[in-house]
Structure formats: C-alpha cells, structure tokens
C-alpha cells in the first residue's frame, strides 16, 4: 500500500482526535475574533428594537435538547432583548420534549431581568396537535391554552390583557429545529392571522429557510451558532455562542484542511494509477 493510499484510509479515530482538539483548545484558550453582523440577524434585532414598550411578543421555542447548543443561546439573547425592551413576552413550545428546556430558559432570563410571571411574561407550555395548535391559537388563544405551564388560568393574566388570538400579537419569533417550526408558523400563523414573523434555526436547516427570508415571508433569520453569536454581539451581552465561535472556527478550518488533504492524496493516487496504466500499455 502506497503512502497516498494509507493516507486516504486513515484511521477515523485520528480525525476524531483532531476535531476533539479543535473544539477543546479554543474553548480553553478563547481568541475572541470579531463577529460580522449579517442582514438576516439584524432583521430580527431591528424589529424588536423598534417595538414600543408593552407590545406583545410571542416566542415559540420549537426545539428539544438535541438542538440546545445552537438554539439555547439564540433563545437567551432574544429573551434578554425582549425583557430589556419591556415587551410582554408570551412563550410556548410545539415540541413536547423541549418543554422543560423552554421553561428553564424563560425562568432564567426573567429572573435575571427582574420580571414577574403572569405580569411581564407567561409560559404557555405545550399542547398536542402540532400545527393545529397554531390555528387554534389564531382563533382563540384561551381555547388552545386554557392554563399556563404552571396550571394558572390564562384568562385574566395581566400579560395577556387585550390579547384574544394571534391577530393581537405584534411580533412572533419561532426558534425551530425542524417541523413544526418556522415554516409551520408562517403557513398556519402569519399567512392567516397577519402578524410579523421572524425565525431562528439550527445551522443545518438554515439554507432551507432562505426562500422564506428572500420573499419577505419572515423578516429575519438567526441561523445556527453563528446567528446566536451575532445576536449576542448586537445586544452587547456576549455569552455561550460567542465563546463557541472560536471552537466552530477551528473545527470548520480543520474540516477544510482534512478535505483538502484527502483531495491532494486522491489526485496523486489517480495520477500514479494513470502513469502505471500508461507504462503497462
């Protein structure tokens, strides 16, 4: 076996080690490279920034712990921003396995901002039905969620004063890791009940949501850890996403170098084989 062949069949544990080191070292020794803000993320930020105090802001945390590394920092940043702007926050989830996580995120950020449950924010929790929940909320929010996550009746909560259905929501953001997520909120929510919608998602599904962004069906998109880092930079509270960007930079670069090495050996092997074939004939 030639050197090129050996390199092409390299033990995958070596690759795992390289990726592991590229993740760990920048986390231990952060560099803090500057993060450029994209227009997609600025779309969400600017809209929240422009909302008057007391506007109804709906945040749907449509993800589970598997997407926590990317969507948790996004949720924290958006909530910090909304609380700073004194918006009335209505949070919920369409993913049953994400309920606990959503509750933790909301409780943590509300406590940090000194906000009161029921008065400044409410967590509606989860209700079965997926996209049907959006339609039901669009018709009557109290029918879809008669009680909040803590079991308190939603009717009469000061945070929901004047809110009957989704038509009374000023701005909604869905942080989605799949279906139901941003697309479902557009099709069953914004399109029918006419409120402004923004999105956040994992890096993997972000390219799939660009058509919605380009056509104005969503007014902004926070994509993956990079999007979260941009939002943290915009609100001036650097957190887990900014810290993770160094590690992501290193792993991206490592993958690029690995792919380049693989191609160099692949072409050298192909040239070798062609030369041998030429000599043989």
């Amino acid at each position, binding site marked *: 076996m030639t050197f090129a062949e050996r390199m092409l069949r390299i033990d995958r544990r070596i690759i*795992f080690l390289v990726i592991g080191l590229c993740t760990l070292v920048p986390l231990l020794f952060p560099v803090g490279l500057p993060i450029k803000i994209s227009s997609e993320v600025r779309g969400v930020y600017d809209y929240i920034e422009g909302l008057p105090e007391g506007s109804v802001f709906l945040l749907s945390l449509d993800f589970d712990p*598997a997407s926590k590394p990317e969507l948790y920092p996004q949720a924290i940043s958006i909530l910090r921003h909304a609380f700073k702007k004194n918006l009335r926050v209505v949070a919920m989830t369409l993913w049953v396995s994400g309920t606990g996580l959503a509750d933790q995120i909301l409780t943590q950020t509300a406590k940090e901002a000194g906000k009161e449950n029921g008065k400044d924010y409410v967590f509606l929790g989860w209700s079965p*039905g997926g996209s049907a929940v959006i339609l039901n909320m669009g018709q009557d929010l109290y029918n879809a969620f008669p009680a909040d996550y803590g079991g308190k009746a939603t009717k009469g909560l000061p945070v929901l004063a004047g809110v009957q259905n989704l038509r009374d929501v000023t701005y909604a953001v869905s942080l989605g890791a799949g279906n139901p997520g941003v697309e479902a909120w557009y099709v069953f929510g914004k399109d029918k009940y006419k409120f402004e919608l923004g999105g956040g998602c994992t890096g993997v599904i972000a390219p799939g949501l660009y058509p919605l*962004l*380009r056509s104005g069906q969503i007014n902004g998109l926070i994509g993956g850890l*990079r999007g979260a880092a941009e939002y943290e930079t915009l609100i001036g509270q650097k957190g887990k996403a900014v810290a993770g960007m160094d590690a992501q*930079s290193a792993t991206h670069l490592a993958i*690029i170098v690995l*792919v380049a090495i693989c191609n160099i050996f692949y072409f050298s092997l192909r040239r070798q084989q062609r030369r041998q074939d030429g000599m043989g004939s």
Partner: protein
Amino acid sequence: MIFLRRQLPLLITMITGLVMAAQYYVPHPASEQLLTTVTKWLQIIGGFALVLGITSLFHVHAAKIRRKEAGWAYSLVLYVGMLGTVIVGLWNNGKESIDGALTSFGWVYSYTLVPLQGTMFAILAFFIASAAYRSFRARSREAAVLLVAAVIVMMGRVPLGEYILPLSGDLSSWILNVLNASVRRAILIGVSLGAVALSFKIIFGVERSYLGGGKE
C-alpha cells in the same frame, strides 16, 4: 358494511376537504367558529395519535424482547426508561420544578434526556468530519463545484474564515441568498404543487391508500 368501511370515510373526507378549503376564503363568524371547533378536534386527535404511537412502540419492542432478537437489551432499556419516566412524571403531576426546585421528573429530564440528546448531537460533528474526509472528493466537475461552494460557505460562516479570506463572508452570503434560495424555491414550488394535486386526489376519492389496502 362496505358502505361503513369505504363509502362513508370517502364521503367524510370529501365533505371535510371541500368545506375546510372553502372556509379559508369565508371570513363570516360561523366559518371562523367552524375552524375553532375543527382545530380543537385536531388537537384532540393529535393527543390520541401520541397514545397510538407509544402503544405501537411498546408492541414492537415487546416482540423484540420476547423473541430475544439481536439488540433486545436496548429494547429493555427503552422499556425501563419509558416506564420509569412515565411513573416519575405521574408521581410529580407532570411538573418539572416546583418553586424553582427540580422535581424527580425534572431531574430525569435535565440530567438524562438533555445530556443524552446533547451527546447525540455532538457526536454528529465527529462523524461529519470523518465522512467529509472519506467522500468529499472532486471526482467530477459537478463534485468540484459543490466542493468549492461548500468550502466558501464553511469559511464565510465563521470569524476565522472571514479573517483568512475576507471575501468569503460576502461570497457565502451570495451563495445562500441567491443560488441556494432560488434552487430551494424551485423545489418548494414543485413539492407544493405535488401536495395540492395529492390533496385533490384524496378529496375526490381518487387516492384511497390512506384507507388501507392500496388503490382499488
């Protein structure tokens, strides 16, 4: 009996399909009330679907354990995990925390489900790197184009990439906003037209496979 098994479901599907399609264009309070009722029913059916799914999962894994099929121990772990979580959940009335303190159900969620799902997600990065090394080769002109685009997007999505190659950020943005969005839109339009056509076929009883037993 044939009427109850075939004609009646077809009739219900047709009437419901046509009424709900028309409902979208009728803003009358009665029409809105109909939508409210139907969506409430959809939510109830969604709840039943969950029960059906869990029951089916239990059956599949029970059969695996009974027959001692390969990997039956994993099915046992699933049983223990699922039943254990259900019992703990019922014990705590489904509450994960009370006055900020974690309940045992919350403990199971925070210290079992969250780390396990996080680990699965993290492992993905290692496998992607390994798979990229083994298969991302410029074997043809098309593969080379894909390779170059992928490298630019990967560079443009991280600060270090933009620092090394300042143009990569704008290029990556252009690839995502123009090339990717237009292709995705074409696919979406195709899929949506297909969905509309299928919906019509179901409403008018042409497509009957959802009744079981395939087309007749």
